[in-house]
């Protein structure tokens, strides 16, 4: 029997706004399966986003959903989690939203290690505004604001998350659909800040400017560049040139922020008594 996605989607809210060929829908389905796997209670789950194509995702989900301002998702989410630590808090958003305008909130969310899960849909471009380069647009690539090729170096979002202190960091691609829900589920179960970067495609704004003749070409590229981190460990460096590692890239146990704050509450109440 086919998997029932409808039970997790708000009645009447589809069709979504995403272009044909966009991978965001694949990620949303992965998120739904992951939430299901983890048995998340819809009433007790908040999905928070910023601005951009990916940030429209929460609107379709039958949970407590918060579509905030550009870049601010992680900071709104921190407020939800601090004020109600028993809630499951998920964040979704794109590359520009998360690590350009929202970069400061992103790294500090990683540092604090609140028990939240951030799914970054990285399609290397600002899609909603029509294809301007983002911090993950490859150097030399074409975007509407790089008429002579992109001069900017890029961010590696997963490395950024690890460096900033996230305690679970994983990466996959929209091509690897069945890995998406597994990694998100693992992230949700992890007690602490988890970041799951999903390399995604934007045929409309990135593909057509960068010599991808079809969505299939973009998906093929995602398939080809991905190398599972375990396999990579056995490969020579020259074979890893231009490849992107996937799977669980980093995991460690570190005190979770709200659990630590609960101790502060106990301490303060004790001092007050």
């Amino acid at each position, binding site marked *: 029997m086919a998997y029932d996605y409808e039970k997790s989607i708000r009645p009447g809210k589809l069709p979504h706004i995403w272009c044909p060929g966009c991978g965001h829908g694949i990620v949303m389905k992965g998120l739904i399966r992951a939430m299901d796997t983890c048995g998340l209670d819809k009433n007790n789950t908040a999905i928070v986003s910023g601005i951009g194509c990916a940030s429209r995702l929460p609107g379709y989900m039958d949970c407590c959903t918060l579509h905030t301002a550009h870049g601010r998702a992680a900071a709104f989410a921190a407020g*939800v989690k601090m004020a109600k630590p028993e809630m499951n808090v998920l964040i979704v958003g794109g590359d520009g939203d998360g690590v350009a305008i929202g970069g400061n909130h992103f790294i500090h969310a990683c540092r604090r290690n609140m028990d939240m899960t951030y799914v970054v849909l990285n399609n290397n471009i600002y899609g909603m505004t029509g294809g301007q380069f983002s911090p993950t647009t490859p150097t030399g690539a074409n975007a509407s604001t790089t008429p002579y090729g992109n001069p900017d170096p890029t961010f590696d979002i997963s490395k950024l998350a690890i460096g900033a202190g996230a305690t679970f960091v994983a990466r996959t691609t929209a091509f690897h659909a069945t890995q998406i829900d597994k990694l998100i589920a693992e992230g949700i179960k992890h007690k602490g800040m988890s970041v799951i970067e999903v390399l995604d495609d934007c045929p409309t704004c990135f593909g057509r400017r960068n010599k991808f003749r079809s969505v299939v070409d973009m998906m093929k590229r995602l398939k080809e560049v991905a190398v599972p981190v375990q396999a990579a460990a056995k490969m020579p460096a020259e074979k890893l040139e231009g490849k992107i590692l996937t799977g669980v890239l980093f995991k460690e146990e570190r005190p979770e922020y709200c659990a630590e704050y609960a101790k502060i509450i106990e301490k303060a109440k004790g001092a007050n008594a």
Partner: protein
Amino acid sequence: MAKKTALVQGNEACAHGAVYAGCKFFAGYPITPSTEVAEVLAAELPKVGGSFIQMEDEIGAMAAILGGSLTGAKALTATSGPGVSLKQELIGYACIAEIPCVIVNVMRGGPSTGMPTGPGQSDVMQARWGTHGDHAAIAVAPESIQEIFTETVRAFNLAEKYRMPVQILFDEIVGHMRERIEYPEPGELEVIDRAKPDVSPEDYKPYDSSKGDIPPLASFGSEYRFHVTGLNKAADGFPTTKPDLVDAEERRQIRKVEANRKDIEKNEEYMTEDAEVLIFAFGSTSRSARYAVNELRKEGIKAGLFRPITLWPFPEERIAALGKQVKGMVVAEMNLGQMIYEVERVTKGSCKLEGAFRVDGEPITPAQIMEKVKEVN
């Protein structure tokens, strides 16, 4: 039993007022001259089971209190002019998404870094029009340590009742100076909580105005699941671009303040009954103005003071009436003329109008005000 009294700073009184009002969440970022509000709440909130977080920046602090408020917690942030500038976009978010929250602005000189340890009153128009787009605004401006406490409680009440951001504006002088406070007993001051939905979760619409201009707000984490967005939205909370719906929602959000001016406005009048010349002053400047009124009366000049405690919405009706009563008005403010434009707009030339302004980091003195009063008398 005698009430508990203490000698405290305005910023401390604000923090204690917040706890009295039932504040359970504070997010902030250090900035002079407001930091003591955060310092006191970092100690006090966990004692009452609330939480405090110091965020990575001013914008993050504003975002966090909105997230916190959506879970049902009364939420506060405190900052100064530069911080409010950074928070403006999300103050607009609070307006359109109708999320109750309180923002304290301990005003200093500006623009930009300006004079961090000097007082100013130049953020009053920022409080009214700082965020982009059309929106209503509520701001209160206490003048003493005791009033900072009571107005903080009232600011929470207004935020919760009208489901919107409310700003508390005071300046460095009252923020940092110490006076005696008598702490009100629990129950002595009214504390208002936001209205909760009285319909089933299936029927709940977060912006359903069929029963009034202020729809009840459910909490995240309850059985009510709903969507919140900064886009123009319909009653169900989902984005819309339908002109009639967008127009109706925008107008309702302004109407909820305009139609309730009587409940929101609060003023103090001192010797205005027979006044022939009026001083309009707010916050710490009104203390100089009251001193000036007393001195002027000794000289035989019939001066009076009008002090808006609610700064926004502007007390249009009363100022228009006073404009017809007096020969002249002096607007005293620690800026180079902001509220005077509101007074001018409302009095429509019915009396002489002068400003007593100052922006050098020093308070406006009674003498400065008295000199201007004599010009319009």
